[in-house]
């Protein structure tokens, strides 16, 4: 069965990074033989002076196919991991949702979108998790991270939010690559311009520095822009709102 794992608020100003915590959890799942986790997506939540986020107010989510038999052990293990490894002063939260058992997907996705534009509280997060029949727990500090952990799963489920963790290695900066080649040899599923034009396999792309991919239409996409009659990969500045 497919499960979604969301975590938030495991870092502090000085220590840790929630993305690294998510990756550690993926490694544990692999090492225990519980599954082969999919890549992590990062979801930006609301930035507001009244939200006590520790550093970025972004949440991390990934999915994995896991057997029912391993689920409880995984949740216990993840809870212990967050408790033991999260940065001092952080407020970690963990959310685990079994795809086929989510009672109200619309409510879950709506919670995700709301966390991008509204100030939400823990009570709302726990109520939504209960309504949807999914696991939500806190593991230190104020436990405020439960809001982001739940929202991260809701946003990942929309298939239209966030960027993938890490960089994608293509060719060296300044070199060219065919779109068909990129799709055949990397995890990128589609190459699309910022204004929504999907490039065809025979088109050519000029590779830039620091390639990031985003989650759009349920796919891992590489965003590009047109300049001087050529397609170029977007840089950090172009995709900062994803």
């Amino acid at each position, binding site marked *: 069965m497919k499960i979604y794992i969301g975590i938030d608020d495991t*870092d502090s*100003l*000085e220590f840790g*990074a929630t*993305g*690294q915590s998510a990756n550690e959890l993926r490694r544990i799942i692999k090492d225990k033989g519980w599954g082969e986790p999919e890549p992590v997506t*990062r979801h930006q939540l609301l*930035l*507001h*002076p009244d939200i006590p986020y520790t*550093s*970025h*107010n*972004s949440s991390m989510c990934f999915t994995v196919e896991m057997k029912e038999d391993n689920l409880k052990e995984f949740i216990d293990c993840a809870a212990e991991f967050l408790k033991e490894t999260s940065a001092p002063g952080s407020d970690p939260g963990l959310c685990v949702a079994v795809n086929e058992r989510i009672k109200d997907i619309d409510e879950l996705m709506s919670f995700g979108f709301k966390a991008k534009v509204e100030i939400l509280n823990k009570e709302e997060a726990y109520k939504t998790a209960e309504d949807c029949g999914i696991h939500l727990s806190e593991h230190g500090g104020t436990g405020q991270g439960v809001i982001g952990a739940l929202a991260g799963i809701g946003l990942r489920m929309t298939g239209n939010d966030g*960027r993938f*963790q*890490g*960089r994608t290695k293509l060719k060296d900066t300044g070199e060219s690559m065919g779109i068909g080649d990129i799709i055949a040899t990397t995890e990128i599923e589609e190459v699309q311009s910022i204004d929504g034009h999907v490039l065809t396999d025979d088109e050519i792309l000029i590779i830039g*520095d*620091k390639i990031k991919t985003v989650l759009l239409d349920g796919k891992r996409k590489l965003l590009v822009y047109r300049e001087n009659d050529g397609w170029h990969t977007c*840089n*950090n*500045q172009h995709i*900062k709102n994803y």
Partner: protein
Amino acid sequence: MWSISDKGEREFTGGKEDWAAVAHIAENCPGFKPDDEDEMVADEAVSCYNCRYRRWTIKSFVCCK
């Protein structure tokens, strides 16, 4: 370049798109520490926008160092 917020925090007045100014500040700042790669937004490696000690606000960021 900086204003002091109600909470006494130092907020950058140039907003979130003044790439050259924050690169210049960070290059001359002994406190700069690169943030996690996933949280970097500037293409200049050394920039307040990529610093572990910047905390985003609605319009800009505060320096927590």
